[in-house]
């Protein structure tokens, strides 16, 4: 029935288009109708081209005004501000070039719209001009590349040190686990072969013959002390996942069969972030959306949505199966004291397997 309906609508649309074009052609009278653009077409399409320039500018401004507040808040990690600087410098360049080139393209399309009898300028080459617009991008890009690579090396150079906290992020369809190295600061060996030991209590496959592993702590919620470098070691037990921590400008894939690394130093606690004026405004906006939706839900006899409170997040950012969209873990950044207190409450691997 539905198929029939869709088909009949399509046929009706086709007939409508046919009729409209027929009428249009008849209304052209005796004019030779070649389907090649004439002066009229050039005129109105040229003007529309110029109008389109303002549409492009308009949608840019509209998006920034309307959606500017969905962008990520200030970075919550030390390298994050460097990242944000590079991002905004790149954006400044992009917007500058975009504004100029689109203006030229669309203005020329309008200004030089065709007229009968007009002749175009025969102008095929200008080496100097071309050299200029080769060299300018070269210089700008050289600057961007150097700045980018400097920052990249800075971020990606992970050096083991006594100060840093080593945390393993462990990915599986469709959740995250974290493993802390414990007092010895060394993660015990692990492999998926050990996952079935101890009736499934060995959640990330720690090798029970490696003494380094006994004091390891496995949790489902990531707690990080503020101001201390965290070295993440990523593992996956099944398919590719990606540990994406957008608030910290951090991401690394989790690859079965290998250990990948990423390091950053969180510099704002969750509590401080919740006080941030941007976040306060955002949470307020989201809660208004949720309250409106809850009203609808209650009217339909459903349960209302919980009010939202800001938290840092770890998301999966590599397609991994049906529940990819809901593979997340809460990240709590806290003072070193709070962190130590929380850690003391956790069970070590040795305690878990007893």
């Amino acid at each position, binding site marked *: 029935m539905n198929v029939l309906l869709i088909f009949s609508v399509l046929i009706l649309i086709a007939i409508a*288009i046919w009729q409209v074009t027929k009428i249009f052609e008849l209304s052209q009278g005796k004019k030779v109708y070649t389907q090649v653009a004439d002066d009229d*077409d050039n005129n109105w399409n040229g003007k529309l081209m110029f109008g389109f320039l303002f549409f492009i500018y308009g949608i840019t401004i509209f998006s920034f005004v309307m959606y500017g507040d969905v962008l*990520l808040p200030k970075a919550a990690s030390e390298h994050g501000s460097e990242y944000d600087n590079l991002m905004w410098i790149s954006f400044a360049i992009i917007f500058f070039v975009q504004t100029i080139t689109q203006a030229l393209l669309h203005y020329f*399309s309008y200004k030089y719209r065709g007229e009968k009898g007009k002749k175009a300028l025969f102008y095929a080459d200008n080496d100097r001009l071309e050299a200029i617009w080769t060299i300018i991008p070269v210089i700008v890009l050289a600057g961007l590349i150097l700045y*980018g690579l400097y920052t*990249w090396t800075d971020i990606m150079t992970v050096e083991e040190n006594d100060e840093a906290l080593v945390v393993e992020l462990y990915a599986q*369809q469709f959740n995250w686990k974290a493993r802390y190295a414990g007092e010895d600061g060394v993660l015990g060996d692990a492999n998926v072969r050990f*996952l079935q030991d101890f009736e499934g209590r060995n959640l990330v496959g720690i090798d029970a013959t490696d003494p380094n592993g006994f004091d390891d702590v496995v949790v489902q919620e990531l707690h990080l002390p503020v101001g201390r470098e965290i070295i993440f070691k990523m593992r996956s037990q099944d398919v590719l996942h990606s540990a994406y921590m957008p608030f910290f400008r951090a991401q690394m894939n989790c690859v079965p069969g290998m250990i990948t690394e990423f390091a950053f130093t969180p510099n704002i606690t969750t509590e401080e972030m919740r006080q941030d004026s941007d976040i306060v405004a955002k949470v307020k906006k989201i809660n208004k959306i949720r309250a409106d939706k809850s009203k609808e839900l209650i009217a339909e006899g459903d349960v209302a949505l919980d009010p939202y409170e800001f938290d840092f997040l770890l998301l999966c950012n590599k397609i991994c199966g049906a529940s990819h969209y809901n593979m997340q873990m809460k990240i709590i950044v806290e003072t070193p004291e709070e962190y130590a207190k929380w850690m003391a409450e956790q069970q070590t691997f040795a305690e878990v397997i007893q």
Partner: protein
Amino acid sequence: MSTAAAHIEEDHGHHHKETFVTKYVFSQDHKMISKQYLITGLFMGIIGIAMSLLFRLQLAWPEQPFGVFEVLLGKWAPDGVMDPNVYLALVTIHGTIMVFFVLTAGLSGTFSNLLIPLQIGARDMASGLLNMISFWLFFLSSVIMVISLFVEAGPAAAGWTIYPPLSALPQAQPGSGTGMTLWLVSMAIFIASSLLGSLNYIVTVINLRTKGMSMTRLPLTIWAFFVTAIIGVVSFPVLLSAALLLIMDRSFGTSFFLSDIFIQGEVLHYQGGSPVLYEHLFWFLGHPEVYIVLLPALGITSEIIATNARKPIFGYRAMVASILAIAFLSTIVWGHHMFISGMNPFLGSVFTFTTLLIAIPSAVKAFNYITTLWKGNLQLNPAMLFSIGLVSTFITGGLTGIILGDSTLDINVHDTYFVVAHFHLVMGISALYGLFAGVYHWFPKMFGRMMNKNLGYVHFWVTAVCAYGVFFPMHFIGMAGLPRRYYTNTAFPYFDDLANINVLITVFALVAGAAQLVFLYNFIHSMFYGKEAVQNPWRSNTLEWTAPVEHFHGNWEGEIPHVHRWAYDYSKPGHDEDFVPQHIPLKKGEEELQH
């Protein structure tokens, strides 16, 4: 070369006796094969675009029941609510179809076949038989891909990049079963088709140019198709090897890409392989593929902009050089898809460097197009509008490449909607515009009739507005940190405020989809009832317009025209007309432009 040309001439000097089957089905005539490519490509395009509309509905109104889901997806949308596995299947097949079947075969296959012999002055491709086999392999791969949509557990759903282990393990998701096998078989056949086609294009351009058609007099379309074919021959075999190794891992228990896996309560036997190896192999094709899609569109645009601006293309040499530079660089940038894959960060530095270099030839191309418009006498035909539109989206989408190509910045926008917005504008929309421009421009050559210009204008303007309407706001969703390939973002209250952007995008997408119906109507209607075309409707310089309107195997009655000048003598001083076709000899004392 001359003997080969003479041989072909003998071969095709007379009309063949043709039956229905040899003329319309198993035709070896490049013009018929080109139409077959176009129509198959458009059919696949309808499927690909329809899929995108389905998942856009889901994204705007998550988990809402829609009657259309029930009709089209059946048991995969119980009570009209889309299943998450189906969502992933839809994005996967949408990507695969659009990239390979529409924008590679549908675009390059159509116009390389139509234009290479006609614009270089050849009777046909070097090998008509290989050309025919190439099309029918493509057709077969399309059929298999469509069949894969109907298997019990659903089609492939691991994303169009089909990274293992997700794609390798049937336990990982329903789409990694029979659907995945069919996907791989279909792609293997597709690659064979593409290789046969590309080899044919390369040989034809090198050997069968008519007298006087030196490489420096080739229209830019031919340069683009020629270089595209070379990139294809260099990179597609690598994807084939990746696909074959993946088939081995899936079906014969090898461990090329798999290691240390525990899934569904079971430790698997795979040891020592690496998914990162697959990523390298995939992107060694995957990135050049972007240019396999884009270069033909740019070639088509170069030709159409020059013809309709009634001006020589500005900086012919620089345009050729930038095509070559882009082609070369495209083979050494694949790692920018893998900055955070776990490969050595030093490699990331190298790939950042090579990637950002591509911006230079791209910028040269954009500036040269703009200068070609300057002081022109622009004939704003639908083909011209789509070409200008292409330059616009190429700039907008290309610029954000500066962010994604920078390994540092990629860390936080990698695999978010920012990437989706970027590549849809720079290669999706741009290449589609190239396809549309080509169809409007060469429709008279293909079908001997004109398309309706007013419907063309409606098609362009609605599409142009909607393309920006869909993909511009999408950058913001990406910058908000939302990963792509999420069935819904309702699992994260943090993203609740993205809902109205998603609605806006979907509305634009639906309108854009409707606008394509106008094109489809125009295409089919004009094929049968369009105004009959004159021989050279756009008053163009290239050789295809010296061939008669009606088609026959061999292209020209009598001798093939000889070439005496480049393809861009538009509005040349000293001539009465504002165009001087390539086969017109130089006047006494007229200088050929030293380009």
